[in-house]
């Protein structure tokens, strides 16, 4: 994550005093000085700021770095609110998942003009291109893949009903079929006539495996959304898409070819072997994974990413956001994803409709 501008030039500058007052109270200190605030890259939907604090008095007196997370100018409807995300982080931490410690939530608009929360800073990087270029990052990569499997299993240990997660609503009876309908609706609303995606959606509709008990699914558990340093994993990030769902959807998303970046031969997120990732998952859950079911969810993963890419492209094309990056996302990714979907669903792999 890169630091690009100083506090004086940042959008936080005009909220400096109210933010310092909020933090002073939160830290039970006499005063807090906000010495610097720098945006962290990597959030298209949220803003993440690295804050340099000097805490005067109280139990945490001294210098400290924390991360402030709030909404970016343009949000995505399916994304959780910051307050919900804060609760999800608390629940995940209580379940033993390695997350940046959630510190304080602030819903008072007088402080920053919008809801935000503060969390501990996790060391390391989440940038996938550094994973490829620096093989010593993350420590032993097979061990890292195994650890990621264990962390995901801990997330999946969170099961409904949970009162503090009531905002997630009722778990869907059949998450795959619900998702397929939703993707068709998205394509229709975008006016996107993609026959390859329609082909994939129909295959997924016909071949959906029976769904097990719903659990908390992260829905964006992939390389790029966790941090590593030289020793290993330091934090699982980006909890904004969490929901109740089929645990195998997260396994498929993590292993899908589209998220292996420059190392497609490393089937666990482009960083390790599938066997190591599966082993870590099975060590915590006590259950082995069914390769056929995971393969199904990898097709679903490519479909989901293709639909998201088209949605992101539409945000730029509609004029909602003048972002060349979003426009290119909608243009560059779908053909490759379509190719992969077609490869995984060739005619010999179809069974007759019931």
């Amino acid at each position: 994550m890169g630091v690009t501008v100083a506090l004086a030039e940042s959008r936080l500058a005009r909220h400096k005093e109210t933010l310092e007052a909020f933090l002073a109270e939160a830290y039970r200190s006499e005063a807090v000085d906000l010495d610097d605030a720098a945006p962290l890259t990597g959030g298209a939907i949220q803003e993440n700021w690295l804050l340099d604090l000097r805490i005067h008095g109280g139990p945490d007196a001294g210098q400290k770095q924390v991360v402030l997370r709030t909404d970016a100018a343009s949000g995505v409807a399916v994304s959780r609110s910051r307050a919900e995300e804060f609760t999800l982080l608390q629940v995940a931490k209580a379940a033993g998942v390695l997350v940046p410690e959630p510190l304080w939530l602030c819903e008072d608009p007088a402080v920053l003009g919008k809801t935000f929360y503060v969390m501990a800073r996790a060391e390391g990087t989440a940038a996938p291109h550094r994973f490829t270029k620096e093989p010593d990052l993350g420590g032993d990569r097979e061990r890292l893949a195994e650890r990621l499997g264990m962390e995901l299993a801990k997330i999946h240990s969170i099961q409904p009903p949970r009162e503090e997660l009531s905002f997630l609503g009722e778990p869907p009876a059949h998450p795959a079929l619900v998702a397929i309908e939703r993707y068709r609706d998205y394509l229709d609303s975008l006016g996107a006539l993609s026959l390859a995606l329609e082909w994939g959606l129909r295959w997924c509709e016909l071949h959906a495996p029976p769904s097990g008990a719903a659990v908390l699914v992260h829905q964006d558990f992939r390389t790029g959304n966790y941090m590593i340093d030289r020793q290993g994993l330091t934090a699982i990030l980006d909890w904004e898409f969490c929901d109740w769902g089929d645990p195998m959807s997260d396994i498929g998303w993590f292993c899908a070819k589209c998220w292996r970046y420059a190392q497609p031969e490393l089937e666990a997120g482009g960083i390790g072997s599938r066997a190591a990732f599966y082993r870590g998952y099975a060590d915590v859950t006590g259950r082995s994974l069914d390769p056929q079911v995971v393969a199904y969810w990898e097709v679903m993963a490519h479909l989901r990413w293709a639909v998201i890419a088209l949605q992101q492209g539409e945000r730029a094309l509609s004029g909602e956001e003048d972002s060349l990056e979003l426009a290119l996302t909608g243009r560059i990714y779908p053909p490759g994803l379509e190719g992969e979907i077609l490869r995984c669903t060739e005619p010999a792999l179809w069974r007759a409709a019931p």
Partner: protein
Amino acid sequence: MKGGEADAVRLLSLAEKEIATEILPGLSADARYRMRLVLNALKIAGAELRDGGDLKAATLAQLQTVETTPQGDGAETLGAMKLRLQALLRQGELDGNQALHRALVIIAEERGRLIR
């Protein structure tokens, strides 16, 4: 070139070359990333101007190889044909259809070529 005036494809191609050889090497990492996005956009726009019409015609020709019931008439536009096939796919009328799969693979490859 026509009468000394460069057409859109040539202008984009020269702009790409200028960026790649003269501008990119001197930029910082963040600016280089942003400029690569610009370069990508220029490349895709150039390829579409040059080959986009051919791709549409090729897509239509590929989809016409798919036999369906009912069959589209010969004058069907690409948009109308896609809509008809989309409806058939959703109804399960084209489950595992070899000709459609073959056509879609070729179309995806051609679309991919346009952005490389």
